[in-house]
């Protein structure tokens, strides 16, 4: 049984989705339990696989039993299975932690979505949850796969479900954003597909390991040919579109800020991060770091400069925003810059790549924390703009505590994981001699300080929360406001606070942010097991 664990990670949410598809429309109440059971099964499978990985090294799983070198029974006797015959799944310390992060984030968001999804999706709740689980299937599958084309199929699974989750929000700007996202996403995926085609043309295989073997044979003789170079550029551009890297980020802010809060809580922490992971996976497992950082050393400088621009542009645009969610979206653009820059800082001996992978984990939880808070504020206090948050410390102290933890992590204050990831990235930048990257990181941290302390100030010292009423009518899109701030009979803390189903994921995330920070040394050490050449 234990050797089947890798596939169970993907299959559990898939079966969950199918069960909801079959019986969900009859009774909406089955949705949440099915989602939770499916994701918990995945979580257990991930933990099981991860312990195997930490004990014995990378775990391979060959779907259909097409393990290269094995003898398969043929009509006239056994046949040896060639390399790359079937599809390979692979879990190592690089993606094992990411799988864990996906499982935890999706469980938290599904707890957060109880009741909320019913209000946001109304009679389409079962469809919402089916799409939700399919999105999880796609994310797990993308992370776990070791096959270049299978990756494309799973990218499409996640893309189609996320288009739907974004367009489901009854906001016309959200619909337009979804349309742009469809165009950009399809072009990105097509570029990736074309890049894989170029690789296939030169190597005759689709298995990542096998491709790398062929490319690196005889001192990168095939690797140096022009189609492989073009393939690399195409794949990178395709993934950059998907992850909203600097010049190609146009679709992201509107798409994430106008979609329903449950969808944005799932999409914002995971989609871009998994794309960054894919980029790192392609760099390490398909092309190999020697190919990138030695054969084409000039490229890494160019990409780091793009990353620097991304960080600066993201931070500056975040400063200009008045809506909380939009500000967070621009911060995502900046964070993507961190990770891409870190990954391109130089060969994996250095700390940049490890810092980038660690930052993927850290950023997933930081973003989740802040988006959960934004969702709670929007619903409970009808506060979507930053100035609406005034007096929030008094009104919702528990939620605000969670927000503070997330914000401190985003800024990079020591006990949180945000500090350590920045530390590793800066260390990598100094090692690689990319001072512009170091400076950009520090500037962006300062901008984050300004951004979040402005919010803290408004929330702590701001005027009376009664001002929230003014905005109630021109935010009619989020009209489910339960603004029970009656000045006559003061509501108790429990009435003012967000319900438990929102607070549990929030505090869980906050705890993980701190735990990740405390155990950063061990985690990075594990990550480096895979990354180090």
């Amino acid at each position, binding site marked *: 049984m234990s050797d089947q664990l890798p596939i169970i990670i993907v299959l559990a949410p898939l079966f969950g989705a199918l069960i909801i598809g079959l019986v969900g429309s009859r009774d909406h109440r089955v949705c949440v339990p099915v989602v939770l059971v499916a994701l918990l099964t995945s979580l257990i499978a991930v933990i099981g696989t991860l312990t195997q990985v930490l004990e014995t090294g990378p775990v391979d799983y060959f779907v259909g039993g097409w393990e290269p070198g094995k003898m398969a029974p043929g009509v006239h006797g056994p046949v040896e299975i060639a390399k790359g015959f079937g599809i390979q799944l692979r879990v190592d310390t690089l993606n094992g932690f990411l799988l864990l992060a996906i499982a935890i984030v999706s469980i938290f968001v599904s707890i957060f979505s109880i009741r909320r999804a019913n209000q946001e999706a109304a009679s389409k709740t079962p469809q919402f949850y089916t799409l939700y689980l399919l999105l999880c299937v796609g994310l797990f599958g993308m992370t776990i796969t070791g096959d270049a084309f299978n990756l494309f199929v799973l990218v499409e699974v996640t893309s*189609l479900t996320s*288009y739907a989750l974004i*367009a489901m929000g009854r906001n016309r700007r959200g*619909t337009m954003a979804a349309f742009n996202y469809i165009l950009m996403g399809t*072009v990105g995926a097509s570029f990736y597909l074309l890049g894989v085609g170029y690789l296939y043309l030169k190597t005759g295989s689709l298995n990542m390991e096998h491709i790398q073997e062929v490319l690196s044979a005889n001192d990168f003789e095939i690797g140096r040919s022009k189609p492989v170079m073009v393939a690399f550029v195409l794949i990178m551009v395709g993934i950059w579109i998907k992850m909203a890297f600097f010049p190609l980020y146009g679709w992201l802010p509107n798409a994430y800020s106008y979609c329903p809060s449950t969808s944005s809580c799932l999409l914002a922490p995971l989609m871009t991060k998994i794309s960054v992971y894919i980029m790192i996976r392609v760099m390490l497992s398909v092309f190999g770091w020697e190919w990138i950082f030695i054969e084409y050393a000039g490229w890494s400088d160019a990409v780091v400069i793009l990353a620097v621009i991304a960080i600066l542009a993201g931070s500056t645009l975040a400063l200009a925003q008045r809506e909380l969610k939009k500000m967070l979206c621009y911060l995502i653009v900046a964070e993507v810059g961190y990770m891409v820059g870190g990954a391109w800082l130089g060969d994996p001996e250095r700390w940049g790549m490890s810092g980038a992978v660690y930052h993927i984990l850290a950023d997933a939880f930081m973003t989740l924390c802040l988006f959960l808070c934004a969702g709670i504020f929007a619903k409970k206090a009808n506060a979507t703009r930053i100035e609406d948050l005034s007096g929030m410390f008094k009104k919702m102290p528990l939620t605000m505590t969670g927000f503070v933890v997330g914000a401190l992590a985003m800024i990079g204050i020591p006990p949180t994981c945000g500090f350590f990831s920045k530390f590793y990235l800066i260390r990598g930048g100094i090692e690689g001699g990319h001072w512009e990257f170091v400076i950009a990181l520090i500037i962006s941290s300062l901008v984050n300080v300004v951004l979040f302390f402005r919010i803290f100030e408004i929330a702590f010292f701001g005027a009376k929360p009664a001002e929230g009423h003014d905005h109630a009518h*021109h935010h009619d899109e989020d009209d489910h406001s339960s603004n029970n701030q009656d000045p006559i009979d003061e509501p108790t803390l429990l009435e003012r606070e967000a319900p438990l189903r929102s607070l549990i994921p929030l505090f869980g995330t906050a705890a993980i942010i701190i735990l990740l920070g405390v155990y950063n040394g061990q985690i990075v050490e594990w990550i480096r097991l895979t990354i180090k050449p």
Partner: protein
Amino acid sequence: MREFLEQSIQPYFNYWVYVILMMIGLWATIAKNNLIKKLIGMSIFQTAIILFYVSVGVKKDSKIPIIPHQVEEHHAAEDGNHAGGHGEHGAKRVTEKHVIEPDKFANPLPHVLMLTAIVVGVSTLGVALAVVQMLFKEFGTLEEDEILAQIKTADSASLDV
């Protein structure tokens, strides 16, 4: 000129056309104003990639990748002394493994991949068309600039309040 044609264009004509189609598709996706035109451009872009893949898998003078079961007549003749022993299909096949020359058949792998890509393409088109209908319901137009203008006026109106 003739040499250029013979050496650079002729053997690669498929690839040239795929690049041209791809550029047409990309151009339409970005620059066209009408949303449905954008989607048609997107589909052309995707088919261009499929054209590339299929061109990769072509082998000259090859058959389609369907390999009929080998009814081994020569074996039947050789094993004639096993009187009545090979009335069954299976009895004949116990003999030697039939050698297949893979160069005679087109490469099946790109075909499989492109089946997937076509299906993915139509799924995306369907979802995109649904979004287009939603947009038309909300904005009453299919022109991108008009939609953006409407959003802009709505935005500035909400800021003034």
